[in-house]
């Protein structure tokens, strides 16, 4: 079973992948919920456009998404230059870029999950909260959000899992620099590209699956607890 033990460099990739996935998940949470809310409740002209935009990363081959990210958030890209200048936020060749790519790729999944939950919320409960004096923001925080928590949890776990597997957009956008942007899937990919790399690929795949399954199980437990709280017994 020795072949199962990852090498030190592989450990680096594993830790990096977890970090990237967690950041991607956490970072897309607020925008994801906000966009989902906009899409469900908003009545504005660009709604369909926004909806389409959110789904783009799903539709495009990941390589294309990575290419677009490079054009936008690269050192010379309009957004990349702006963010670097004003916020010191640099994505290119950084793990932050990997996280951005993963977040973008997982975004449609997160938004859909949250959206479905929001659509299922009984608006009469929100009305009730309103009559009790709660402002729309407070209503959202104390009524809507708790009720959509299962959907948010589902969306987060989807984003996390997707980030653990995402590779095409990431490697195109920020390439694979060991310790900085070489995530687990990039390492796995590299193994698949050489004859006889199968054991290595299998080893890392097992690690990746183990991590994701643990996260999945955790999310199910969490969702069940949240659900039990919401629906009582």
């Amino acid at each position, binding site marked *: 079973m020795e072949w199962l033990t990852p090498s030190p460099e592989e450990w680096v990739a594993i830790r990096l992948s977890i970090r990237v996935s967690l950041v991607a998940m956490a970072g897309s949470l607020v925008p994801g919920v906000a966009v989902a809310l906009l899409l469900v409740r908003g009545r504005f002209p660009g709604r369909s456009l926004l909806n389409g935009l959110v789904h783009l990363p799903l539709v495009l081959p990941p390589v294309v998404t990575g290419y677009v990210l490079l054009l936008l958030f690269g050192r010379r890209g309009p957004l990349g230059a702006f963010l670097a200048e004003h916020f010191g936020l640099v994505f290119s060749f950084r793990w932050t870029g990997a996280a951005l790519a993963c977040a973008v790729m997982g975004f449609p999944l997160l938004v859909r999950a949250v959206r479905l939950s929001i659509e299922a919320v009984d608006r*009469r*409960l929100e*009305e*009730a*909260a*309103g*009559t*009790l*004096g*709660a*402002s*729309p923001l*407070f*209503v959202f925080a*104390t*009524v809507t959000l*708790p*009720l959509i928590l299962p959907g948010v949890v589902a969306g987060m776990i989807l984003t996390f899992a997707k980030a653990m597997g995402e590779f095409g957009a990431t490697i195109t956008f920020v390439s694979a620099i060991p310790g900085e942007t070489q995530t687990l899937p990039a390492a796995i990919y590299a193994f698949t590209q050489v004859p006889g790399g199968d054991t290595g690929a299998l080893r890392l795949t097992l690690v990746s699956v183990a991590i994701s399954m643990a996260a999945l199980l955790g999310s199910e437990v969490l969702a069940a607890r949240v659900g039990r*709280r*919401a*629906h*009582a*017994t």
Partner: protein
Amino acid sequence: MTIAVDVAKRLGAFELRAAFRSGERLAALFGPSGSGKTTLVHLVAGLARPDAGRIAVGDTVLFDSAAGIDVPRHRRRIGYVFQDARLFPHLSVRSNLLYGRWFTRATEGEPNLDSVVALLGITHLLGRRPGALSGGERQRVAIGRALLARPRLLLMDEPLSALDEARKAEIIPYIERLRDEAGIPILYVSHSLGEVARLAADMVVLDAGRVVAQGEPLAVARRLDLLPAAAEVEPGRFLDVVATRRDERYGLTTLVLEGGEIVVPDLDLSLGQSVRLRVRARDVMLALERPVGVSALNVLAASVGTARPDGLSGMEVSLDCGGQELLARITRRSFDELRLAPGMAVFAVLKSVSFDRRFGEDADARPVAPTGGSP
């Protein structure tokens, strides 16, 4: 505080077009199922937007289409007890009850958690989730939640219909206290004339989206024999009387009117105060001579007016009692045996009377259930 409503709202084929104004502390919205009560209350609470119109509570204009005013619902400070309880499923009963507290100054006194919870009999439920409550328990929590938000107007949409009589009997006096002491005006939706008569000084009757009548509940109910719901109110008439004497020993007060006296259990009326009584036709017995040696203390001299058959075996006889009208329901056989005829002098013996709410307007006098004092 005055509630002034004048709104129009279309919902599919249904059109609400209602205007009324009530200065009473508790006004009832009454009407058959589907007449628009909930729709109207929604408009007041800001849960729906009138197509046009104006809604004001006291000096505060909540909505005015002409002036472009539409106060958002969370600023209206209107407590709403929904027809369906609408508790927050993810919060405990306690958190549900305290939800409105986030938005009110936590001043001392009145509606506080302990007192409300004790009154509603839900102390043992505080730790539960709404999903684990019975229908009536849910409704009680909903009432508590609205009260604890310390609203400036309370809307109650059939709040008691899920409750058993004993529980109702406990809560009604509390609503009365709210109305009389806490000074929270209440708009009360109900399809029970009994509840309305007991609680409301003013009743607005809706039918098919229109206000068809407004006024003192029993008077309106009497007037609207057309209104199917009035069927529940037995025929009867009102007598205006004056409290004249008090019999300390027997705890009785004597009310005087032209034609005689009526003795009722002591009611803290100030002497000289004028009061309105409701006398049901079936509680009036007729005698040709003043009965003696009977337990009924209330014998009024009257003269027979018109009479009309009532059902197969009954007669409804109108009496003139010192200028006021009384109604008696007797059998046709008695009518014939007594040879009653218009103008004939008779004695009306009253078994029991009830008080009209009108005298409740005097701060001191406690309202009394319609089936109150039996002398």
